[in-house]
């Protein structure tokens, strides 16, 4: 009896639906949103899988092989990692990378923040300045390398010409081990500052104007306003810039080094990423390079975790 009653209830309920939906069941709003999100995300997910995730797994696998010649693989377990531990050139490259990151990231952070604050002002022609400062970021690093190679040339470079005109001796900017890394850092700051300036600008523009108006009414000066309003509210943006610029510093810049110094002088600009590239594609040591690449990724995960820990992921609170 109870099943007959249930059937009756279903029959009674049926007319509430539209006639069309009886033939073509519609997705709920939630499902439609999931579907849309999936479709939007699909190209990126596919790209990340094909070009990042799968190569990453294959590369870790490759790090356990000795690659001799072309396409000849021999399992050697942790042999490449043991070799890495005893390779002074690799540790030199890691030390240089450390110096590079420790100088580049804070300088880039401060310069970008400064520029962000500057171009936020209502200055005449500020759009032109924003574009000009962003422009180096869209230029290929190879072109940047060639350009700066000319600018930093010992005899004919603009930098040395200007120095000589001011009564100083010129320098061998790219030929002195003590100067070359600094030049690479300076050029990278020049390239990247526009991008992070825009990030900071976006962060600055999200801070409600009312806060500044209130601070002004309270008689706060520019430094106090920056310290008590701008800096705390820029926290998520600062976290983003810090993390991304650290990762970019460790993994990027290969093209620039390649063109500007080729790792010289005397390995002075041989960053870990350059040394890994050289071992893989210059020397055919694909297994060894994969081991070093995997180790570098591990280092980056640790650094990222430390940044997350100390900045609490850029959040304002401890929750969520």
């Amino acid at each position, binding site marked *: 009896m109870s099943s007959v009653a249930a059937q009756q209830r279903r029959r009674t309920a049926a007319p509430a639906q539209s006639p069309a939906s009886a033939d073509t069941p519609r997705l709920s709003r939630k499902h439609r949103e999931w579907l849309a999100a999936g479709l939007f995300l699909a190209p990126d997910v596919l790209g990340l899988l094909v070009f*990042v995730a799968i*190569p*990453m797994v*294959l*590369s870790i696998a*490759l790090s356990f092989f000795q*690659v*001799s*010649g*072309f*396409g000849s*693989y021999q399992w050697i377990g942790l042999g490449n990692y043991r070799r890495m531990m005893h390779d002074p050139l690799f540790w030199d490259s890691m030390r240089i990378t450390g110096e590079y990151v420790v100088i580049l990231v804070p300088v880039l952070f401060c310069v970008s923040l400064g520029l962000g604050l500057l171009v936020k002002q209502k200055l005449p022609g500020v759009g032109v300045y924003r574009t000009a400062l962003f422009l180096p970021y869209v230029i290929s690093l190879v072109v940047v390398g060639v350009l700066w190679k000319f600018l930093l*040339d010992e*005899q*004919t470079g603009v930098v040395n010409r200007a120095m*000589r005109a001011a009564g100083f001796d*010129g320098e*061998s900017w*790219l*030929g*002195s*081990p003590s100067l070359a890394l600094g030049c690479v850092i300076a050029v990278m700051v020049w390239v990247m500052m526009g991008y992070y300036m825009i990030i900071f600008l976006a962060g600055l523009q*999200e801070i*409600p104007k*009312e*806060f500044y108006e*209130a601070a002004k009414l309270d008689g706060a000066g520019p430094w106090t306003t920056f310290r008590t*309003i701008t800096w*705390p509210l820029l926290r*998520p*943006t600062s*976290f*983003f810039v810090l*993390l991304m610029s650290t*990762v970019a510093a*460790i*993994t990027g810049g290969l093209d620039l080094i390649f063109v500007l110094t*080729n790792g*010289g*002088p*005397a*390995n*002075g600009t041989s960053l870990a*990423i350059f040394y*890994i590239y050289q071992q*893989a*594609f*210059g*020397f*055919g040591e694909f297994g060894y*390079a994969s081991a070093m*690449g995997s180790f*570098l*990724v591990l280092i*980056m*995960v640790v650094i*990222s975790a430390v940044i*997350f820990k100390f900045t609490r992921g850029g*959040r*304002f609170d401890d929750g969520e």
Partner: protein
Amino acid sequence: MLQHGTEAGFPATTSRRRLLTAAAGAGAALAATPLLTGCGTAQAKGGNLQFWNFYGPQRSPDPAINAQSKWFVDMVATWNRTHKQQIDLVYLPQPTYLNGFKLPSAFATGEGPDIFLLSPGDFLRYYNGGVLADLTPHMDQAAIDDYGSALDSRKVDGKVYALPMEIEPLAMFYAQDVWEKAGLSEADIPTTWEQMLDIGDKLRTKTRAGLVFETQPGYYQNFTWYPWMWQGGGDVMDHQGKVVFDSQATRQALALWQDAVRHGIAPRTVPAADDVIGGFKGGNVAMWQQGIWNVASFKAFAPKYRYGVFKLPVPPGGKYVTTLGGWSFCANAQGRNPEAAAEFCAWALGSMKDDSINRMVDWCVGAKSDVAPRASALERGAAKGGYDSEVMKKFKDEIFPGGRAEPRYPPVVYKAISDAIQGTMLAGRGVAGEAARAAQSIAAYTKSYKGASLI
């Protein structure tokens, strides 16, 4: 006042910030993937053969480059007219070809070209990798004899694995105007290292290098440094394969470049961002160690510029030697059709037929300026007037005869030598320590080395 979520619009802002945070985390994870992959796949068989090179087909404002491109295009067109197996030329820009990852990674993934150009410094890496086809069965003994010692560094166990298209000796190029303005004449052309440094010191100014040696680390820098070591009787390995790098001759060669830089006679980076013709024309160079290939570049870009060349000076008690470079044609032993690819190499450069010899003549004294590696081609080139100019005559009759082929050391050996050159020249480290360190590194490598002879 600053309580989150209480201001209009703030929740949305917070949300965006959280999104930013999440993006940063994801970005960090994803950007941290400079990883390398290598997975061998079987080479697809059939289809046209691919000939990777850095000459053509291309169009350039430089007439010399266009002529070189045309030489390649014409050669392949001639082959395609007369053979069933067709060939496609694939052009790669020179920097990509020389130092890029495209060629080695193509071979590592089993997708290497069927025919390609190879420098002597890279010979062993490719031979030991098993991708060089034996060209000997496709050549006449007469053609092999015609090449003579030019094939020595491309042979393993008497078999030929690469056919040189050119020989490129190194010499000193100098600016005649600068020379004359300093009151120097041809009689002052240096024959010893000391004279060379003295003249370089005399000719240098704040914007002009007295003497230029290659400064950027790489195979090319090693290539240009070897003759200074050889001239004093030094070497990397002796005839038995024993490492002899740590020697008086090596130390004095390292010291020569170090002294030139330390005293400001040679710059720490090459002038004019390595634009040789621009550097000379701009008055930024007095002397520059360079190769014969620049004769064609001067002819194309600065036909009226007055320059001269002279043999590399020697140390006290030394003997003149220069390095002979030059590229070769190779066939991929694992390609689509290795037999046809090898046959093509022999047909193009290694046959006794007139076409083959004339093709080399056209390359060495027409499209380019080189010494021909085959005796017959050198004779024909001379008869054609290709070596009549003062500079080319000097290269053929004086500079080339004392030459020695560029060694074919594998990467570990190259790197040890490169680090010694860079460390002494540009970081001011002691020559004895650097020579000893490099020798130890090379000796350690050769103990476990398995492959074709390093010498």
